[in-house]
């Protein structure tokens, strides 16, 4: 919870809602036959329709509707059997028709839930063109020239609006991750924040903890990474609390968070409050979602992250935390399930090896891209379970696997990292040496002070270079000391 310390002693509770724009991964644009592209030569994918030439008319992309329905069904939304497209009027060079075709008062999907956050609505619309400003400022004000690239114009978008159910910047970040993996699993979008196929605005307000009323909200625009979202929202929460503590009022406005400076500034451009003069798009007929269309969308639904997490917890006995990690991060879940297929004796133990793995490869990386195959991770986990290698030694083996790949059995054999067992003379000798090295501690243990065993165990572990199993060492020490 990011409620800051307060002068007046008032505890503030942040209230956050997100508006997310997702570019759909259709072959063609929302209302014309131009191919979608990213990074191609500017204005190489446009036609009369997406350039807004006189006389051109839009035709709805059926695939985009299908994807919209999949999203709505995945979120548990109520699907409108008849929804409308509207014209949202505004003048800007990124809008060739002078209006955006969007959905307004009758969207495709209403309600629903993703994880612990309720969905307000999901609707379909078209993306704007991309403006490139030539000049020092990089923004339209003070630019020498501005180019318009219409390749992006008309790309199908869904806008997802949440209820104000998020309560901290971390919460917002984590939930957006869940949303992203959900959309990725659905296969409806590349959901790449850097490339802009997933874009997030946040509505932020704060209120005294326990209050049922909402404070004045501000809208934080276009945070293009999870980290920026978290930092931006946190900065805005702190800014609002500062304002309230100074006895002033938060002003409802649209803001821009600069991740480099950490500054929040008011936007003065088309994003300002507008009268968009929405009215039903007369060039399109109402969008009818038939039973057949809905059934087809339902048939294409894969298992969703929230459901997967639930299954991991319920069927495999994973902890809630572990289940969420593996369920919400699709690539981790996929990796885990491949490892499980290789050796599924102890799913909980196997799951516990995923965090150390991503800690070593980089927390945002996909382990499938690493040198550690799911099968070899399963082998390593099984070796620990069979006490063939100690947990500590196994961590070193994992590090080597991450660096050079390879089979854990071979690494253990090559490096001589196999566990020392009770029957092993070497371990018995080490136990004897420990007792000899610290007679005081040994005496105390004999007298019944079991806690005094620590230094003796430590000695063995140290001398065995982690190959010994701590439990086994304790057992052997107790055996010796009680017997003598």
């Amino acid at each position, binding site marked *: 919870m990011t409620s800051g310390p307060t002068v007046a002693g008032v505890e503030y509770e942040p209230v956050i809602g997100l508006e997310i724009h997702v570019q759909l991964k259709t072959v063609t644009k929302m209302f014309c036959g131009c191919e979608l592209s990213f990074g191609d030569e500017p204005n190489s994918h446009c036609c009369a329709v997406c350039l807004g030439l*006189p006389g051109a008319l839009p035709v709805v992309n059926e695939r985009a509707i299908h994807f919209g329905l999949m999203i709505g069904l995945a979120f548990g939304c109520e699907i409108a059997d008849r929804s409308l497209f509207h014209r949202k009027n505004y003048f800007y060079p990124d809008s060739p028709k002078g209006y955006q075709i969007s959905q307004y008062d009758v969207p495709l999907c209403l309600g629903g839930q993703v994880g612990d956050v309720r969905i307000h609505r999901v609707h379909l619309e078209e993306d704007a063109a991309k403006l490139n400003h030539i000049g020092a400022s990089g923004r339209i004000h003070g630019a020498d020239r501005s180019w318009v690239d219409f390749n992006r114009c008309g790309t199908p978008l869904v806008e997802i609006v949440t209820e104000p159910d998020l309560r901290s910047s971390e919460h917002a970040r984590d939930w957006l991750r869940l949303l992203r993996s959900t959309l990725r699993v659905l296969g409806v979008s590349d959901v790449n924040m850097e490339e802009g196929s997933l874009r997030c605005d946040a509505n932020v307000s704060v209120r005294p903890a326990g209050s049922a009323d909402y404070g004045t909200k501000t809208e934080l625009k276009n945070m293009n990474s999870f980290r920026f979202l978290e930092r931006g929202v946190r900065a805005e929460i702190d800014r609002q609390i500062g304002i309230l503590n100074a006895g002033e009022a938060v002003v409802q406005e649209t803001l821009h968070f600069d991740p480099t400076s950490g500054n929040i500034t008011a936007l003065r451009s088309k994003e300002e409050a507008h009268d968009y003069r929405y009215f039903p798009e007369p*060039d399109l007929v109402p969008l009818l979602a038939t039973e057949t269309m809905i059934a087809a969308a339902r048939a294409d639904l894969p298992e969703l992250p929230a459901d997967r997490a639930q299954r991991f917890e319920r069927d495999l006995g994973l902890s809630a935390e572990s289940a969420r990690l593996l369920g919400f991060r699709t690539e981790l879940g996929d990796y885990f399930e491949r490892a499980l297929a290789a050796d599924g004796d102890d799913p909980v133990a196997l799951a516990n090896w995923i965090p150390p793995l991503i800690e070593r490869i980089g927390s945002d990386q996909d382990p499938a891209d690493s040198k550690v195959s799911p099968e070899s991770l399963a082998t390593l986990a099984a070796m620990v379970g069979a006490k063939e290698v100690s947990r500590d030694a196994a961590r070193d083996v994992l590090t080597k696997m991450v660096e050079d790949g390879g089979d854990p059995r071979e690494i253990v054999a090559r490096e001589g990292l196999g566990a020392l067992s009770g029957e092993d003379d070497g371990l018995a000798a080490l136990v004897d040496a420990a007792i000899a090295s610290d007679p005081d501690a040994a005496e105390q243990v004999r007298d019944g002070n079991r806690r005094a065993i620590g230094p003796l165990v430590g000695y063995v572990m140290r001398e065995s270079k982690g190959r010994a199993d701590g439990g086994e060492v304790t057992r052997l020490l107790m055996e010796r000391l009680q017997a003598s």
Partner: protein
Amino acid sequence: MTEILELTAAAAAERVRAGELDPAELFDAYRERAAAEELNAFTWVADGPPANGDYSSAPLGGVPLAVKDLFCTEGVPSQAGSKILEGYRPPYTATVVRKLAQAGAPLLGKTNQDEFAMGSSNENSGFGPVLNPWDRTRVPGGSSGGSAAAVAAGLAPWAIGTDTGGSIRQPAALCGIVGLKPTYGACSRYGMIAFASSLDQAGPLTRDVTDAALLFSRMVGRDHCDSTSLEFPGELTLPKAQDLKGIRLGVPEELTGDTGGVEPGVRESFEATLKLAEGLGATIEPCQLPHAPHALSAYYLIAPAEASANLARFDGVRYGLRVDGDKDLLTMYAHTRAAGFGPEVKRRIMLGTYALSSGYYDAYYGTAQKVRTKISEDFRAAFERFDFVVTPTSPWTAFELGAKTDDPLAMYLNDFCTVPMPLAGIPAISIPSGLSDDLPVGFQLAGPAFSEQRLLDAAYALERAIGFDGSSARR
């Protein structure tokens, strides 16, 4: 030569197909007249007939077509009568124009019109007014005034225009020709520079009903580029009806009474036509369209509202006129639109913008849509008792240039009898019913959606009974 020009389009097509008429000769005969015309009916005329013109089996027989300027024609100026699109040559051709060319009606020229189809006199063109061939001191009507004048004057065998609130029927009436506004959705709007998308429909302007039927039969059909277009149900054939036996005609009191300010000469011609219809076997009774008097008000909210959005794309960024401002975007927009749009277009953009504004939407646009629904219901009820509803097309004959330019509301009243039909999406046809003080009068028949075949049949029978002679305008 004169003989060629006296052929109707259907007759000319038949001769071409029979090998009795050279389509190139036909084209040139009209091309020469169109290029030399003095009515300002054309904004562009083709250099010659298209190459490879074999029309021996073409349904439209190579009979050249005049096309209202607002239809996009690839590589050919398509300016919608507006300075803001002066010299604009689109990269594609409107579906309807393409279909007609494929059926054998090559493009003769582009015709003058009220700017973005906003007007009833053709005085709102950015390229000067069109003159009425019956009296060159008078307007031809609008907005398809160039198409109407060209056909009436024999500068073109036939033409297409668009009708939003009367823009085909009213100029057809004022120029003494036939004009059909089809059912909404019957013809593709793809490539028509939009005025009001929920009302705009393309249709034929022709010398007689047969020509209208022939041209229309090749315009219809579902177009995958226009989501609002529909497959035309049933087959369209050339009209053959000899009488009106069993046809019930409803005369709506609201549109033919005193409210519309119908001129005495127009009323006389209308009543004479009703008598003729009766003589052909029709029954004639008064009918009610209670909400029709509100149609004009609803129309002048809905059409400008849609236009305010449709015309937003003319911003100087990508095509057409651009007038730079003070090196900033907003003044570039303002200067471009101030210089490019005429006063009537600006008036309607402002009207429409206001009608859609937050806080006014429900009172204006919302209410207008409710009225629109009521008007549709009125027609539905009327068509339970009647085959067609009939009215004068325009309350007046052609008026003098400049007579109404200072009074927009008086100008809007031109559309009093023609506006209810597009609001209901239903078809209507105007045929010449005679002359009043040497000026043509139009008679309008409106039917239920997709009743064009019956409408054309009835109009054909009436046309024969009326025996209107428009040849004097072609001299």
